């Protein structure tokens, strides 16, 4: 297959795109058309669920008008796309579920609104696991998305379409959501950068709910610098989300850290203490992934950072804690799908209760049903204390483990995102909890509500895994995402993993 670089990928990163637009070397409409063509050409990836070229081009024309009027925002004309859990006027919103197959929102999610105000042009809606439950994108009611590095591999999940679209160069960046690793893990498996901000940093207004004490929105892009460009307009207080917290955004902490690193000469990261939890390098970690992560840590040491051995003793216990709390909250949140006000309604039923039960049985896929059932059980009379409250107590202990590491030992924590590179599509089909165990390195962060990112740091080993990317996880303290991005940027200035293309 011979392919020239599509126009929208000719200008480098987001700053490059913005400069080209400002200097009129290209128009937003030309970029949008190029990206629309790329999306159509890569229908095999099944990364997009809903594309409406006229809506995209209308946004691009508005971007060109803003440019002409000298009123461009930070993302004016930049092609992005949204995970299909952010509600949008115009484009349908399905959350990857048959339950919402025909749903069209009467309003835009806060994230969608904010990115549009910043000038970004949306290419449409991206595939994901049903209601963001899964880590392979195979739980989508509309078929799996594929990994651009290897069509036999999953792209990860639940933001699998987001990661695949960025990796394949269909868009400059994409939105995702992370409840237990759903931004970080697909970013790792597709070789792109992604960040889950601190709980409360980004408004969840208009984000289809899964686990409300865990859900957080975050961007995926090709570099830490591009993530900052997206995250800055995404963050900010929103009174429409009860968990939204006032936060001055990632920029101030980023500037402080990046400014200090710029003074460091050949040892820009001198003074940075990297906590490396021994529990993240146990028997479950594949040797090829471990080697890539070790090489990344060595690179950070070359940049002047100091490696500190730490312990997060309850790492593995995050799995049972999360798989009580997240399903419990999901069972409560998804009770709203009753076949009355919106969503799927069964064709045949006897009475109101039967209508609801049949509509839910038909509308929800197997993984969502499973999680609702287990969530219902752990919240039911007589079991609430033993499961739900016990999980919440353990959750506090896990959060405190991170706090004691940040209190005296280290500034950031690093380790793998996932124990292996992307698995093949269809693996684990007979064992629904096998994928759950692979969330071991991302769940603790989610339970604690901390910010964390994934940056590409190499590939697996051997003829098959050698073409499947590995991600490095960088975890920070609350509201310290600016420093994470500055640290990741330094790594990306010294390495070229993030520039590799499938």
């Amino acid at each position, binding site marked *: 297959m011979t392919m020239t670089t599509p126009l929208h990928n000719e200008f480098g990163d987001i700053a490059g795109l913005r400069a080209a637009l400002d200097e009129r070397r290209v128009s937003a409409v030309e970029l949008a058309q190029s990206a629309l063509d790329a999306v159509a050409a890569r229908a095999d990836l099944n990364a997009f669920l809903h594309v409406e070229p006229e809506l995209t081009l209308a946004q691009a024309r508005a971007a060109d008008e803003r440019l002409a009027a000298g009123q461009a925002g930070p993302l004016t004309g930049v092609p992005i796309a949204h995970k299909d859990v952010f509600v949008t006027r115009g484009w349908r919103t399905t959350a990857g579920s048959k339950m919402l197959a025909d749903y069209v929102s009467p309003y835009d999610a806060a994230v969608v609104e904010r990115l549009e105000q910043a000038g970004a042009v949306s290419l449409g809606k991206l595939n994901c696991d049903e209601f963001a439950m899964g880590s392979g994108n195979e739980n989508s009611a509309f078929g799996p998305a594929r990994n651009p590095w290897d069509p036999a591999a999953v792209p990860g999940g639940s933001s699998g379409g987001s990661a695949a679209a960025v990796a394949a160069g269909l868009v400059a960046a994409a939105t995702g959501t992370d409840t237990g690793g759903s931004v970080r893990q697909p970013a790792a498996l597709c070789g792109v950068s992604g960040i889950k901000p601190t709980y409360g940093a980004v408004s969840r207004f208009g984000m289809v709910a899964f686990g409300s004490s865990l859900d957080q929105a975050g961007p995926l892009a090709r570099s830490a610098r591009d993530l900052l460009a997206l995250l800055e307009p995404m963050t900010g207080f929103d009174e429409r989300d009860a968990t939204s917290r006032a936060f001055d955004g990632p920029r101030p902490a980023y500037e402080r850290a990046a400014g200090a690193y710029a003074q460091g000469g050949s040892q820009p990261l001198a003074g940075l203490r990297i906590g490396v939890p021994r529990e993240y390098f146990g028997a479950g970690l594949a040797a090829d992934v471990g080697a890539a992560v070790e090489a990344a840590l060595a690179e950070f040491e070359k940049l002047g950072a100091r490696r500190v051995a730490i312990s997060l003793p309850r790492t593995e216990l995050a799995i049972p804690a999360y798989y009580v709390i997240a399903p419990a909250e999901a069972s409560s949140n998804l009770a709203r799908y009753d076949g009355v006000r919106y969503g799927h309604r069964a064709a045949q039923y006897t009475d109101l209760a039967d209508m609801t039960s049949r509509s*839910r049985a038909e509308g929800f896929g197997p993984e969502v049903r499973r999680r609702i059932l287990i969530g219902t059980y752990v919240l039911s009379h007589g079991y609430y204390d033993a499961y739900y409250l016990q999980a*919440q107590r353990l959750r506090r202990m896990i959060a405190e483990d991170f706090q004691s590491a940040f209190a005296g030992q280290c500034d950031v924590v690093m380790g793998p995102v996932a124990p292996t590179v992307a698995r093949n599509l269809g693996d684990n089909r007979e064992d629904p909890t096998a994928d759950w165990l692979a969330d071991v390195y991302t769940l603790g962060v989610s339970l604690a509500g901390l910010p964390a990112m994934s940056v590409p740091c190499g590939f697996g080993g051997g003829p098959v895994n050698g073409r499947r990317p590995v991600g490095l996880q960088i975890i920070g303290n609350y509201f310290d995402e600016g420093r994470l991005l500055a640290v990741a940027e330094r790594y990306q200035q010294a390495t070229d993993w993030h520039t590799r293309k499938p």
Partner: protein
Amino acid sequence: MALNEKDVARIARLARIDLTAEQRERAQAELNGILGLIERLQSVDTSGVEPMAHPLSAHEDVVLRLREDAVTETASEARRAELMANAPASRDGLFLVPKVIE
């Protein structure tokens, strides 16, 4: 303690999900597998630890806001029609459901 067939039927009823006999059987095996996984919680001594409902409570005192008890949405027939456009069945601004009272 493993879940039996009756337990699964009860959970499915509470969750308002209609399962076929075959799905119930499969769910029983799957839920028991999951319980085996989460049972490890019980081995942890958490006495004296306060349950954590809000993750930022590890960082600061969390005070949930209450908004003013006031209507903020615009009320108009057009807006109502827009909000009800996704309803499986509606008429005259009302959601239609099967007859509840004979």
